[in-house]
C-alpha cells in the first residue's frame, strides 16, 4: 500500500513537472487543486459511527487512486465534536482541511457557544442518512409496534431511553409519543452499553438505537425492533414498520456528510463534489452502506447547506418545544 502511494506521488510529481513545462497559463496560481496533503479531521474518537465512515471514505479514495497526494487522518475528539470542527474552522479560506459530519454537527452549536454554525462551513455534500430503530427487550410483553402503542396508551405513561438529551433520540421518542397519544418519561444515557443493559434489565420499556450497533442483539433475539425511522423499511428487517406508515412523518436522522473549512476555494469544493460523486458509485461504498444499514441520501453543495439549515431550525423548534433548550 505504501509502495503504491509513493509510486503515485512520484507519478503525480512527474505530471506536474510536465504540465509546468508545457505552458504557463495558470498565471502562477499553483495550477490544479489537489497539490498538497489533505488534513482529514474526525471530530470523534476511534470506533464510533463517524470514525468508521471517515476511514471507509479515505480507504476508498486511496484504493481507487482518487486523491493524488497523501491523506492524513486524525481523531480530534472532545466537546461533542466542538473540538474537531473548531479545528476545521481555524483553517478558514483553505482547501486542504476536511471533516465528516454527524448529528452533533447540528446539536452541539445549539447547546454550546462553539463559535460556529453548521452553515458556516463549505459544503461538499450529504452522503447518507443514518436512521434509527425503536427497540424493546426480547422478553417484553409487546413485540410489535402495534402492541407497543396499545401497551403505552393503556398505561398512559411509559419510561423510554436514548443517548443524550439534546439529541435526535429524544426528538424521535417524543414525536412518536405525541403522535400516538401517550406520555413518556425520557431517561437520557451517555453510553450505549449502559442503555442496552438497562433495557434488558427491564428498567426502561424502549430505547433508540442505530441498526448497525444493535443488529447482533436483534438476530440473537435478545431485543426486538418495533419501529424504523427511515422513509422505507430496511431490507434486513422487512417486518419492522416505518414511522411514515404509522402516521409519524419527518422523523429526524443523523446527517452523514462531508464539509470543508469556511470559505474554501471554489476549485476545492468543485473537486470534492465531483470526486465524492465517484466515491458513492463504488462497490466499497455500497458495501459500507449495507453493512451499517445507512440509506443513500445525496445532496451536493449548497443543497447540503440548505438541508443543514432546515434541519437545525427544525431541531431547535422541536427541542425548544420539548423544553430541552
Amino acid at each position: 500500500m505504501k509502495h503504491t502511494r509513493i509510486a503515485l506521488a512520484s507519478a503525480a510529481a512527474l505530471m506536474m513537472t510536465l504540465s509546468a513545462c508545457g505552458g504557463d497559463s495558470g498565471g502562477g496560481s499553483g495550477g490544479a487543486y489537489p497539490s498538497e496533503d489533505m488534513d482529514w479531521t474526525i471530530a470523534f474518537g476511534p470506533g464510533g459511527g463517524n470514525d468508521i465512515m471517515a476511514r471507509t471514505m479515505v480507504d476508498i479514495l486511496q484504493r481507487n487512486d482518487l486523491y493524488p497526494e497523501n491523506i492524513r487522518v486524525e481523531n480530534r475528539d472532545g466537546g461533542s465534536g466542538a473540538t474537531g470542527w473548531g479545528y476545521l474552522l481555524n483553517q478558514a479560506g483553505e482547501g486542504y482541511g476536511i471533516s465528516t459530519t454527524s448529528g452533533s454537527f447540528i446539536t452541539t452549536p445549539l447547546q454550546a457557544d462553539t463559535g460556529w454554525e453548521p452553515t458556516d462551513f463549505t459544503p461538499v455534500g450529504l452522503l447518507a442518512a443514518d436512521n434509527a430503530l425503536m427497540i424493546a427487550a426480547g422478553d417484553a410483553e409487546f413485540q410489535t409496534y402495534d402492541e407497543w402503542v396499545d401497551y403505552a396508551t393503556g398505561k398512559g405513561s411509559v419510561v423510554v431511553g436514548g443517548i443524550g438529551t439534546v439529541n435526535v433520540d429524544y426528538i424521535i421518542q417524543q414525536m412518536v409519543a405525541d403522535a400516538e397519544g401517550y406520555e413518556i418519561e425520557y431517561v437520557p444515557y451517555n453510553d450505549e452499553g449502559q442503555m442496552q443493559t438497562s433495557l434488558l434489565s427491564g428498567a426502561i420499556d424502549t430505547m433508540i438505537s442505530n441498526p448497525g450497533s444493535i443488529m447482533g442483539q436483534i438476530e440473537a433475539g435478545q431485543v426486538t425492533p418495533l419501529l424504523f425511522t427511515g422513509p422505507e423499511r430496511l431490507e434486513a428487517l422487512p417486518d419492522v414498520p416505518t414511522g411514515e406508515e404509522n402516521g409519524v412523518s419527518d422523523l429526524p436522522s443523523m446527517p452523514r456528510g462531508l464539509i470543508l473549512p469556511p470559505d474554501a476555494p471554489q476549485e476545492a469544493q468543485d473537486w470534492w463534489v465531483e470526486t465524492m460523486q465517484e466515491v458513492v458509485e463504488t462497490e466499497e461504498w455500497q458495501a459500507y452502506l449495507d453493512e451499517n444499514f445507512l440509506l443513500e441520501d445525496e445532496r451536493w453543495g449548497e443543497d447540503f447547506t440548505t438541508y443543514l439549515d432546515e434541519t437545525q431550525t427544525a431541531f431547535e423548534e422541536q427541542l425548544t418545544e420539548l423544553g430541552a433548550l
Partner: protein
Amino acid sequence: MDTFDNLANGIVAVATPMNLLLLLAGVMLGMIVGVMPGLGPSAGLAILLPLTFTLDPTGAVVMLAAVYYGAMYGGTITSVLINTPGESATVASTFDGYPLAKQGRAGPALVMAAIGSFVAGTIGAVLISVASPMTASLAATFGPPELFLVVILGLLTLIVIIGGNRLLGALSALIGFAIATVGIDIGTGQQRYTFGSVELINGIDFIPVAIGLFGVGEILHTLWRGGHLEKLAYFNVSARSRDFWPTGHDLRESAGPITRGSFLGFFVGATPGAGATVASLMSYNLERSVSKTPEKFGKGAMPGLTGPEAANNAASSGAMVPLLTLGIPGSASTAVLIGGFMMWGLQPGPLLMTQNPEFAWGLIASMFLGNIMLLLVNVFCIPAFASIARVPFRVLGPAIIVICVLGTFTVNGSIVEVAIMLGCGLLGFFMRRFGFSPAALVIALVLGPMAEESLRQTMIISGGSFGIFLDRGTSRALLVLMVLLLVLPLVTVLIKRAAARGIARYGAMRRRRARRSGGLPGGEHTPPATTDTVADSTDREPETERVDST
C-alpha cells in the same frame, strides 16, 4: 469438556510465530504507553487501533489484547515508582506500592504486582471460559438502580479506606464531586460551570486531574521538603541482585490477597460500569479488614498492593464477559475494542461466540498467552523501569514534570487540559501539605458523575420513589452486600477481640496448669517469628498463634 476444548483450540490457533511476535510487540507497546502518565489502557488501545487494520482479525485482536494487558501493567509501574496512576483502576496501587518503593523495595513490589496480575489474568481467562453464561445473565440484570448501588459500594469502600483523618478525606472526596459537576448535565442538557468554554463541555477529564495531583503535586511536595538536596540511598535494582526478588515472606503474604482479589475483581468487572476501579478499591478494603496488621496498610504492606493489582487485572478479564456474551462494553477500554470489532466486520453481540467462535476463543486465548508474555517481559524489563527509582531527584523531578505535560497534551491535544493539570498540581501540593487525600478526590471525580447519572435515571424510572431498590432482585442482593461491607470490619474486630480473649483465657489456664505440673512442655518454645509468617496466609484461623506469641 467443551469449554476447555474451545480454549485449547483457541490457544493453538493463536500460537503461531507471527501471532507470538504480535503478542510480544503488543505487550511492549502497551507497557510503554501505560508508563506514560495519562495514557491508560483505553487511550493506548485507541492510539494503537489503527496499527492493527492491516492485520487479519485474529492477529489484530491478539495484539490489542496484549496492548490492553501491557498498558494495565504499565499503569502499575508508574503508580509504584512515581506515585502517579495512569488511570483510576491503579489508584489503589499507589496506597502501598509507593511506600514500598520509598523503602527501597520497588523491585519486589513490581515483581509481586506482575505475579499478582499474572495469576489474576490466568484465573480470569479460565473463569471467562467457565462462567461466561452465568455472569452474562447477571450482567443483563444491571439497570441504573444496580449501577448506582455498585458505584455507592465503591464510594463507601473509599470512605472506609480513607482512614486517618476522615474529615479531611471526606472533604477531599467532596472537592472531587464538585469538579465532577463541570460539563453538560446529562439530565437536562444544561451546561454547568463551563463558562461558555468549548473545552469544558465534556467536563473535566480524570486524566489531567490525576496527573496533576499525583505527579506534579508529589514533585512540588518533595521540593518543599527539600528532597532534591537529600542524598539518595542507592538501592541496586538488578535481576541478579537478591534485593530485586520478592522474599518467601512476600509470596506467602500475598497468596491470599491475590486469590481473593482475582475472584472479587472478575465478578465486579463483569458488571458494566466502573469495574476495575471499584474492584481494586474493594479488594484493598477487604485485605485491610481481614489483615492481622491493618496498621501496616498505607505504609508499605505487600497485600495492599497485590490484592488490588490482582483485582484490577481480573476485572479487565471480567469486562470481556459482557463484551463477548452480550456485546456490551463493560469499560472504556472494551468500548474501544468494540469499535475495533466493527471495523474488522465482526458484529459484537450475543452471536459473536457462535458465529465467530475462532475469533472469540482466540481473544480469550490471547489474553491467556498475553499474561505469560507479560510476566516474561516484566521479569526482564522491571530492572530497567525500576532503575528510574535510582535517578537522583534533581534529575528525575523536572523530567517527570515534562512527561506529565507531554502525557496530558497527547491525550486530547488540549492546552486547556495542560493548564488544568498544572492547576491540579498546585492543589495536590497543598492537599498533601495539609493532609488531604488526593486519591479520594480522584476516585470521587471518576465515580461522582456515574453516581449522579444513574441515580437520576433511577429516579426518572421510578417516578421519584426509592422503593425501586427493594423491588429489583439484583438491587436487593447489592444492598445486602453493602451492609456486609459496612459490618465486616466491625465484625472482624469483634471476632478478633473475642478470639484474643478466649485464647488469653486458654493460655492463662494452661500456664496455671503447667505451673501446677511444674515446667512447660518443650514445644512451647518455638520462636514466635516463624509461626507468624506462616500465619500470614489465607485464613484468619492462625490468629491463635499470633495471639499466643504475644
